[in-house]
C-alpha cells in the first residue's frame, strides 16, 4: 500500500500535506461528501451533540485539574478556591458539573433514538455494542468525577457504590480493598479516582472513534429503518447535516446555558456543599439523577448480591439487545405494537428514576419492583416474542419514495428485507 496519495486539493499547502498524509481526503470523504440518508429528523442530532459535550467536558476538565487538589484535606477547599478566586473558575466548574448532566440527557436521548428506530439491528450490532461500552465508561467517569469535590454526598456515594462490589462472593472484598486503596474510602481512593477520572475520557475518545468508524462502514440508520437503495436516498453530509446539526447545537447550548447560568445547583444535592465527614452519614444517600433508575433496581431486590447483579444486568442486557429483538423491521414506525410498548419501557425507566429518589418504603418499594420487572420483561420476553407475533405495516419502497401508492408495492408484512446496505 506504500506510495503517495494522489490529492485533489488545489491549495498547495493542503495538497502537500494531503499527498503525504491524506487526512484532508479522509475528512472530505467521511464528513464532506459522505452519503447520508436524507430523511433524518432532529433526533439524529444527538450523536453530534454528545461529541460536542465530550469536548466541552475535556476542555473544562483540563483547566479545572490545573487548580484542583486531589487530597482529602484540600479537595473541598480547592473547589471553593476555583469557585471564588480563579478567574471564571465558577464558570468552568458549573459548566463541567452541569455538563455531566447534559451529557447524560443527550446520551439517553441518543440511545432512545437507537431503540425506537431499531438502529441496533443487523448490520449495526457492533456499532450498538460499542455504544453500550461508551455508556458504561461514561457512567464510571461520571461517578468518579462526582467523588472529587469531596463533599458529603461524594464521600458517601463513593462508599455505597464501591461497597456494592463486596456482594460478590470470595473476590468481592478484595475488589473493594483494591478500589479503595485501603480499608475505607480515604485519600488513596481520592487519588486513584482523580487519576482514572482524567484517564477514562481519553479512553472514551478512543471508543467513540471506533463507534464512528463502525458507523461510517454501515452507514446511518434512518427514521424509516430501511436501507439506502440509490443515490436519490442520500445527501452529502456537508452542508446538509452540518447545518442541521448546527441548529441542534445552538438549541442544546441554550438549554445548557440556562442550567449553568440560572440554576447551576438545581440538579445537585445540598449535602455536597458540606465537606466529607466519615463520621456522619447523611439522612439519604442519593446518587446523581442519571443513576437513579439503576439505584432503584438495586434497592428493589431484598438480596444484596441479586440486587447488584440486576443492576449490572440492566446495562449488560443492552449488549445482547440486537439478538433479543427478533423482529427484522427496524423502525417502530412500522411496528404497531412495539411502538406502544417502547413508550411503556420509557415510563418504567422514569418510574424507576422517581423511585430511586425516594426512600425505599411503602409504595416506592412496590413501584420500583413492578418497574424493574417490566424493564427486564421488555428485553427478555416481550422483544423476542413480539418479533414473531407482530404484523408489521408494509415498508416503503425506498427513502425517496416513502409514501406507498395504492399499488402496495412494499414487501409483505413479516418478510421485510434486512439485506446489508447497498453501497450508494
Amino acid at each position, binding site marked *: 500500500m506504500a506510495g503517495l496519495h494522489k490529492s485533489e486539493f488545489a491549495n498547495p499547502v493542503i495538497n502537500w500535506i494531503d499527498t503525504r498524509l491524506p487526512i484532508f481526503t479522509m475528512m472530505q470523504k467521511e464528513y464532506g461528501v459522505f452519503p447520508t440518508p*436524507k430523511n433524518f429528523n432532529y433526533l439524529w442530532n444527538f450523536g453530534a451533540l454528545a461529541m460536542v459535550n465530550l469536548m466541552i467536558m475535556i476542555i473544562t476538565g483540563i483547566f479545572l485539574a490545573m487548580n484542583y487538589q486531589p487530597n*482529602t*484535606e484540600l479537595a473541598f*477547599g480547592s473547589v*471553593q478556591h476555583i*469557585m*471564588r478566586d480563579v478567574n471564571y473558575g*465558577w*464558570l468552568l466548574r*458549573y459548566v463541567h458539573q452541569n455538563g455531566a448532566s447534559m451529557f447524560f440527557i443527550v446520551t439517553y436521548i441518543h440511545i432512545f433514538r437507537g431503540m425506537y428506530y431499531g438502529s441496533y439491528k443487523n448490520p449495526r450490532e457492533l456499532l450498538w455494542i460499542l455504544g453500550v461500552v461508551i455508556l458504561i465508561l461514561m457512567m464510571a467517569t461520571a461517578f468518579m468525577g462526582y467523588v472529587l469535590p469531596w463533599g458529603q454526598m461524594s464521600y458517601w456515594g463513593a462508599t455505597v457504590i464501591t461497597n456494592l462490589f463486596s456482594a460478590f462472593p470470595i473476590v468481592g472484598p478484595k475488589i473493594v480493598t483494591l478500589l479503595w486503596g485501603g480499608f475505607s474510602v*480515604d485519600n488513596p481512593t481520592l487519588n486513584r479516582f482523580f487519576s482514572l477520572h482524567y484517564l477514562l475520557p481519553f479512553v472514551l475518545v478512543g471508543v467513540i472513534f471506533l463507534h464512528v468508524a463502525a458507523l461510517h462502514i454501515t452507514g446511518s440508520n434512518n427514521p424509516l429503518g430501511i436501507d439506502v437503495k440509490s443515490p436519490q436516498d442520500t*445527501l452529502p453530509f456537508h*452542508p*446538509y447535516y452540518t*447545518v*442541521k446539526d*448546527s*441548529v441542534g447545537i*445552538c*438549541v442544546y*447550548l*441554550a438549554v445548557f*446555558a*440556562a442550567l*449553568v*447560568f*440560572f440554576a*447551576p*445547583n438545581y440538579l445537585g444535592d*445540598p*449535602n455536597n*456543599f*458540606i465537606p466529607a*465527614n*466519615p*463520621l*456522619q*452519614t*447523611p*439522612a439519604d444517600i442519593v446518587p446523581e439523577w442519571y443513576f437513579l433508575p439503576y439505584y432503584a433496581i438495586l434497592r428493589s431486590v431484598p438480596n444484596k448480591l441479586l440486587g447488584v447483579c440486576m443492576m449490572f444486568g440492566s446495562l449488560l442486557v443492552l449488549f445482547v439487545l440486537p439478538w433479543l429483538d427478533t423482529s427484522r423491521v427496524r423502525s417502530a414506525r412500522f411496528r404497531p405494537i412495539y411502538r406502544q410498548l417502547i413508550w411503556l419501557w420509557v415510563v418504567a425507566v422514569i418510574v424507576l428514576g422517581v423511585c430511586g429518589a425516594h426512600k425505599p418504603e411503602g409504595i416506592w418499594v412496590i413501584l420500583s419492583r413492578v418497574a424493574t420487572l417490566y424493564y427486564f420483561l421488555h428485553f427478555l420476553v416481550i422483544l423476542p416474542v413480539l418479533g414473531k407475533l407482530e404484523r408489521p405495516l408494509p415498508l416503503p419502497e425506498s427513502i425517496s419514495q416513502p409514501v406507498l401508492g395504492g399499488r402496495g408495492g412494499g414487501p409483505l408484512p413479516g418478510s421485510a428485507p434486512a439485506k446489508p446496505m447497498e453501497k450508494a
Partner: protein
Amino acid sequence: MRPLRSLLAGVFAAGLLAAPALAQEGESLPHQKWSFDSLFGTFDLAAAQRGFQVYSNVCANCHSLQYLHYRDLSGIGLDGDEIKAIAAAVTVPQGLDDQGNPKDGPATPANQFRSPFANEKAARAANNGALPPDLSLIVNAREGGADYIYGILTGFVPAPSGFKMQDGMYYNKMFPGHQIGMPQPLQDGTVEYTDGTSNNLDQEAHDVITFLSWAANPELVERKQIGVRVILFLVFMAGITYAVKRKLWSDVH
C-alpha cells in the same frame, strides 16, 4: 485525617441533632422575598452590608467564614479603604517571627476571615460539644436555602409542654428534631444599624441571610448577567442557523 476519631461519641450525638437525619416534622418552609431570587435578581447591597454587620457582631462569635477573604468584601460594595480598615481591626496569626515563635498581627485584605476558634476541638469545647458549622456555604448546603435559614433564625419558640429537651439544647420549630445547640442568636434590637433601618428580628434575619447568600454565591450577579447575554446570543444564532438550514434544504424533496 484530622484527629476526629477520638471525638466519635460527641460527633455522633451532635450528628444526630445537626444532620437533617430526622424527618422534618410539620413545619413548612417560610417563603420569603429575596432580592437575589428572580431571574434578574441581584443582591441588595445595603442589606448585605447590614448583614455583614450582623455577622461580625453576632454570628462571628461562633461561626467561621473560612472560604472568604477580606478582599472579597468589595463584592458587597465596600471600597478599598473600608476593607483595609475592617481587616486591620482583626488580629490574625501571621506565621513565625525571627525567633521562630508564632506571632499575631493585624489582618490585611488578602487574609482569610478569622475563625472564632483555633480548631474543631476548641469549637466543640466552647459550645457544649456541638460544632457551629462554617457559614461560607450554609445557604447552599441546606435544603430550602435562604428560606430554611430564615426559618431557623426566626424559629425559636418555647418548647411545647411535654416536649423533652436535652441539657443545653434549644427548641426551634424549623430545625429537624426541633433541638438545636445554638441559642437564639438574633432578637429585636440585637444589632444597632447605623443607616437607621429598623432593627427588628425579621429585618436582621433578612439582612444576614442576604449577606450569607452572597458569601455562598459571590458570582451570582455576574453569572446571571453573562447568562442573559449568552442565551440571547444562542437564541439569535439558533434562529439564523435555522433560516440557513431552511434555505439550504429548500431544494431537497
